[in-house]
């Protein structure tokens, strides 16, 4: 009897949960599952074009698919930004938390294992999640393709090489771009353990205040190319990254350099 009540309660909760979520504009079977998995059971979700997710309609290279989240049309500050790739073996791409700075635009490359929907969720100040989505067609295999870095016999000398540039594409806002040579092994290629940068932080150089923090997951592509456009003028920043083997990477970058 108790078991039946439990089952009934579960069903009811499930129904209630389903009723609260909007329909997926892309009709992916992973919609609800991943929303609950990454945003939690209680998440309030709305679909919002102002969380502009730019990805190509097809992946020319399944191991390097570019993604840009443009929040310039989104009103007000965000608490968090979470992105995932519905059909990837580990769907999560990143979780980003603004600290002293608000992101206007974030870009990086991800891997796709097969044709899939891609999501980005921005949590507004009232706690609600605003979702942008896009479909990517792909031959796939990006998550299980061997690293290009490791195929290069010189990779150990080039490992950790970082290039950067600071730009001001929109007056009053600053864009920082970083390219790092790192194999970012996902752990899904035969006998190659996970070896990837998982913690990325941006500090203001003068005050050393943390501006934002990004946790990267398995769907992030190798040799990551990050773009961080921050609201407001930022003259100089310090990039801090750590991989799961404990390697630390730190670089400083000021506007007027590299751009």
């Amino acid at each position: 009897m108790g078991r039946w009540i439990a089952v009934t309660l579960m069903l009811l909760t499930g129904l209630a949960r389903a009723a609260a979520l909007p329909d997926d504009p892309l009709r992916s079977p992973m919609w609800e599952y991943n929303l609950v998995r990454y945003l939690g059971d209680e998440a309030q979700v709305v679909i919002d074009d102002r969380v502009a997710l730019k990805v190509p309609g097809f992946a020319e290279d399944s191991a390097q698919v570019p993604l840009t989240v443009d929040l310039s049309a989104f009103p007000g500050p965000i608490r968090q930004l979470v992105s995932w790739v519905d059909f990837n073996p580990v769907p999560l791409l990143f979780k980003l938390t603004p600290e002293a700075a608000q992101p206007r635009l974030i870009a990086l490359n991800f891997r796709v294992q097969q044709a899939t929907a891609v999501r980005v969720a921005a949590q507004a100040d009232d706690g609600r999640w605003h979702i942008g989505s896009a479909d990517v067609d792909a031959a796939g295999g990006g998550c299980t393709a061997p690293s290009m870095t490791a195929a290069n016999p010189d990779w150990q000398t080039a490992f950790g090489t970082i290039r950067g540039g600071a730009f001001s594409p929109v007056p009053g806002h600053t864009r920082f771009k970083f390219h790092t040579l790192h194999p970012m092994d996902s752990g899904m290629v035969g006998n190659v353990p996970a070896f990837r940068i998982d913690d990325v932080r941006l500090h203001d150089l003068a005050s050393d205040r943390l501006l934002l923090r990004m946790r990267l997951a398995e769907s992030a592509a190798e040799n990551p190319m990050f773009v961080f456009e921050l609201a407001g003028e930022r003259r100089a920043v310090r990039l801090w990254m750590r991989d799961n083997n404990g390697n630390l990477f730190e670089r400083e970058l000021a506007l007027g350099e590299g751009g």
Partner: protein
Amino acid sequence: MAASTRLQVRAMVMCLLCLLSAPSLVAARSYGLEATAVADGVWVVEGTTENFSPANGGNIVNTGFIETDAGVVVIDTGPSRRYGEALRALIARHSDQPVTHVLLTHHHPDHVFGNQAFPEHTLYMLPRGRELLARDGPAFAENMYRLVGDWMRGTELVVPPNTLSPGVLTVGTRRLRLMAFAGHTGSDLVVLDETSGVLFASDLVFYNRALTTPQTPGLARWAEELQQLRTLPFRVLVPGHGPVSDGGAALAQMADYLSWLDHALTQAARRGLSRSEVMQMAIPERFAAVAGRRYELVRTTTHLYPGYEKAALELLANPEATPGSQ
């Protein structure tokens, strides 16, 4: 009497089979190739300017053939075994001469996957092109099966056993000038039929069709080679993709497009644009006639923009490693 009964039965079975299989065969699997004479004894088989699709079976390419008094010279064999067979049948309708030379211009799948239809000893390619085909062919084949489907049935990679060197190839009374370029794939054969003035520029020239860049050594190199093509004494230009013409407008459009692309990618990198932003950037109105331009910009951004980005970023020193910083 018994024999005629057997014939009747056989005929009935055949009819039944025809009825069962006719709709799918007729509807889907004939390239309907046609040859257009562009000069005396020179024909071009023109494909569409679309992308690979199950609807076009990969017939997005121009192939051609040249009749001499000592045999037929074929230029490229198309995207599949089925195309190659149709091309061979088409050639036989226009010439009684046997095919003696099949010149494969470069290793891309739409140009070489009809090779099976021709005797292997007639297949010729530049040495570097052969290496590239042996290296990339299996992956290309896999991708073609995915993109165009059943049209590819029975298609297998055939790497030409014979190598070509640049210079004059004389077949009968025809003089074919063979030139090795690299701008499109790293090994691109261009054939000038000196007798007729027809230039088979292959994929160094796309006309009213966006150029493709997966293996290009760089847009600057390609633009430079295009300048060399302008100096050749030709009357008719056959591009790898797009319509045959006297070549003036085709070369001008190609040079303009290459130069715009190179400039736009350079500027985008200097402004710090992300790859997705570049994929969505505006394409000038003057290229409105160029088919597939947005699709190819997405691909080209993937292939080439990382190089432009790298050039626009500074190497950042590790502050920990700088003497005196600690």
